[in-house]
């Protein structure tokens, strides 16, 4: 050991970059299927709801229905591409590929592992989040400068959901347990996010609960920047998404440590 040697600290960029390099190189071998599932699902929702409901309802909250859904659907992509990707990939890497054993034998700590993987999922989610919005533009959503902020919002929300997905995977000893989380938590959140209909049409208790749904805050923020109707409330939405990301991040690290370090 030499005196000039730098002591390795926490959350080092080199370690997280290594984790992300692994993800990016692996992604090069399955990007087609991953991009397909992350973007085609929300696009189908967009088209189904857009044309289905769009023929019954012409305007919602002052916007054409296609514009309303085309912006709200960003949050759906965030959920699919953030939480679901993180849940399944974390579980598979842990249980079947033993990838984490190899990574943690290198100078990488659980904290860096979780953060690196979540950052990569967040980056993908930021890009994928825009795809259904771009499709909606073909069907009449008016382009706006505010759309340039959407990858950032989807990325932030995506980071929170990626961490939440890792947390779910860390808490699950069998992949079957995912059903409880999906049906019991994620599906209700997905439906009560204001994506397909405004929460104001729901009973009051549901509206109150909706305020605790990170997807709702993501939907609001996206609509406000795209339609240029920002207000002070958006600071609150942004703060909620940031808080959600921070809490999920620490939860994911805590429970992954419990799972990986015996």
């Amino acid at each position: 050991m030499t005196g000039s040697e730098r002591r390795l600290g926490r959350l080092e960029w080199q370690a997280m970059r290594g984790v992300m390099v692994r993800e990016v190189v692996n992604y090069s071998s399955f990007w087609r299927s991953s991009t397909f599932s992350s973007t085609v699902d929300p696009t189908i929702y967009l088209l189904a709801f857009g044309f289905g409901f769009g023929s019954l309802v012409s305007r919602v909250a002052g916007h054409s229905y296609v514009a309303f859904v085309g912006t709200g659907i960003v949050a759906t992509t965030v959920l699919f591409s953030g939480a679901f990707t993180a849940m399944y990939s974390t579980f598979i890497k842990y249980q079947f590929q033993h990838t984490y054993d190899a990574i943690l034998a290198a100078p990488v700590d659980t904290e860096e592992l979780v953060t690196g993987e979540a950052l990569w999922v967040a980056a993908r989610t930021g890009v994928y989040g825009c795809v259904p919005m771009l499709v909606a533009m073909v069907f009449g959503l008016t382009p706006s400068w505010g759309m340039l902020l959407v990858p950032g919002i989807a990325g932030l929300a995506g980071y929170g959901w990626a961490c939440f997905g890792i947390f779910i995977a860390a808490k699950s000893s069998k992949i079957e347990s995912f059903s409880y989380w999906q049906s019991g938590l994620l599906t209700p959140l997905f439906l009560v996010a204001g994506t397909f209909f405004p929460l104001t049409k729901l009973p009051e208790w549901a509206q109150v609960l909706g305020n605790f749904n990170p997807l709702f805050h993501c939907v609001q923020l996206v609509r406000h920047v795209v339609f240029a109707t920002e207000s002070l409330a958006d600071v609150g939405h942004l703060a909620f998404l940031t808080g959600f990301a921070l809490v999920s991040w620490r939860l994911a690290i805590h429970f992954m440590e419990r799972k990986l370090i015996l």
Partner: protein
Amino acid sequence: MRGFVKRFGSITAVAGLDLDVPAGSCVGLLGPNGAGKSTTMKALTAQVIADAGELEVLGYQLPADSKQARAQMGVVPQLDNLDVSLTVEQNLIVFAHLYRVAGRARGAAVDRALSVANLTERRQAKVDELSGGMRRRLLIARALLHEPRLLLLDEPTVGLDPQVRQELWALIDRLRGEGVSILMSTHYIEEAERLCDTVTIMSHGKVVAVGPPQTLIREHAGGEALEVYGPPARLAEVEALAQARGWRTRRTGTSVAVLSTNGAVDIEGVRRVANLEDVFVLLTGEEIE
């Protein structure tokens, strides 16, 4: 490693283990399944945290400075954890990043690891096209990218054909010759006898013997063994006879080996040189749990 203890719930996996790997030597951790070998290996990378005891690797205290230690340590796991959809080269590039090989040195590190493991020709092959032996060599190559000072090999040849195993032995022996310290866990006795300068024999989480293989053989089994074949009744008879004369015996399934006789045997049988397997069975017991 001093007094390392690890419990999982009510089960004590390792109960006070002392272990030293002198620089540049190859140390074998020998024991039956469940003796605590893998737990011990995982403790050295801080993937298992000790309940008691002092662990120091390459001058770093664990778990506090384990990251520093891991930066100078290579690990070949028992379970294959390669990225199977990637090529041989891609696997190595990824781990060159994880082991922080500097950008300009990365290509050379990958080339060198490929050549050490004799995989240069398979550089572009996908991992799922490789044979078991090649995959194991790739795991070793991956552990050597950052030129570690200490190499941990957890059951390096388990499940491989004899030819492939010998090829890996040659590779491990070459690495030791280059001055890399090696700690290897194995339950293949021949492997430890051939490769290790010293072995630590574990049973039920405790050390039962430590020393160079030849010394252990001399101390516990004597220089020569007499192998007596016959029907079960004859074998029992031989056992009783040996016991009466104070000789140790072990069953090998089809025969009884009479040990520590110092050559003064009056029983008919095949003489052979005593080996580490004799010591191993004497010390860890014949019963399968």
